[in-house]
């Protein structure tokens, strides 16, 4: 594919993107897709959270998993950064600590795809940040 440079180039790939979207049968409702929040405060960024977020965004797309990845501020687990909060539709949010690209891969393959718990979960009486 030719390099995308101008806004016009972007326009041209729209149909490719739309085809991919319908392939995933993605609903537009946030609570029907996997939601991942990556802690992106100074502690997180310094420990490599950006690399993890980039990995998640790229891999979830490649593996055709409908998900929304966003950033949050400090979740308070600075000792365990990078941390990510994963909410599978219908389940409680889970926070994973010490996440690197290898762990992120495990989380995608085992937890998101199969519901299998992965090492490194930070156990708390956990409420999603919105409810705090």
């Amino acid at each position, binding site marked *: 594919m030719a390099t*995308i440079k101008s806004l016009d180039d972007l326009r041209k790939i729209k149909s490719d993107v739309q085809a991919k979207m319908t392939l995933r049968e993605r609903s537009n409702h946030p609570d029907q897709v996997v939601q991942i929040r990556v802690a992106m405060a100074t502690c997180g960024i310094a420990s490599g959270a950006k690399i993890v977020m980039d990995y998640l965004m790229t891999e979830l797309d490649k593996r055709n998993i409908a998900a929304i990845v966003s950033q949050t501020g400090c979740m*308070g687990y600075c000792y365990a950064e990078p941390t990510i909060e994963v909410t599978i539709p219908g389940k409680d949010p889970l926070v994973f600590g010490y996440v690197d690209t290898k762990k992120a891969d495990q989380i995608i393959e085992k937890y998101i795809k199969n519901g299998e718990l992965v090492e490194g979960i930070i156990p708390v009486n956990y409420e999603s940040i919105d409810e705090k």
Partner: protein
Amino acid sequence: MKDLSLHILDIAQNSISAGASLIEITIEENPVKDLYTLVIKDDGKGMDKETIMKVADPFYTTRNTRKVGLGIPLLKLNAERTGGTFSIESRVGKGTSLSATFIRSHIDRLPEGDLPGTIVMLATSNPTLQFIYNHSTPNGNYTFNSREIQEVLGEIPINDLSVYPFLKEMIVSNLSDIKV
């Protein structure tokens, strides 16, 4: 922080926490004056004079989860280590503008890092906010405006994961044209 793009990500988070709706990230490379300038400006809630004086203190933070706030102190340190300057201006209710200037040729100047990835990450994870990234060098000028991108994308949301690699590629190819 290992590179500049991480500082940008960090400072932009401050702007987001301050309730900004428009965040402008401007980089100017001036080899003639030997300067590399980064300006991050937002229209968030701003800070009063007292607070502005405190932000470069590593022991000042707005968070209640810990007692240390290193983002701004670290950026200030990195700018000044190259012989550059750092300043913050802010007006309550109007917004904040942070400026870090590095001596371009100085060996301690941080590498840029993944600027395209950072900009796109910010724009796509915060689809309700507008990000304008402008990079200028003697070879030219490039502007990425997330609002424009959203208009071009139409009904495709900017935070759709399949859009991410294309936007990164777009910034990379435009930057390679103007890079010195």
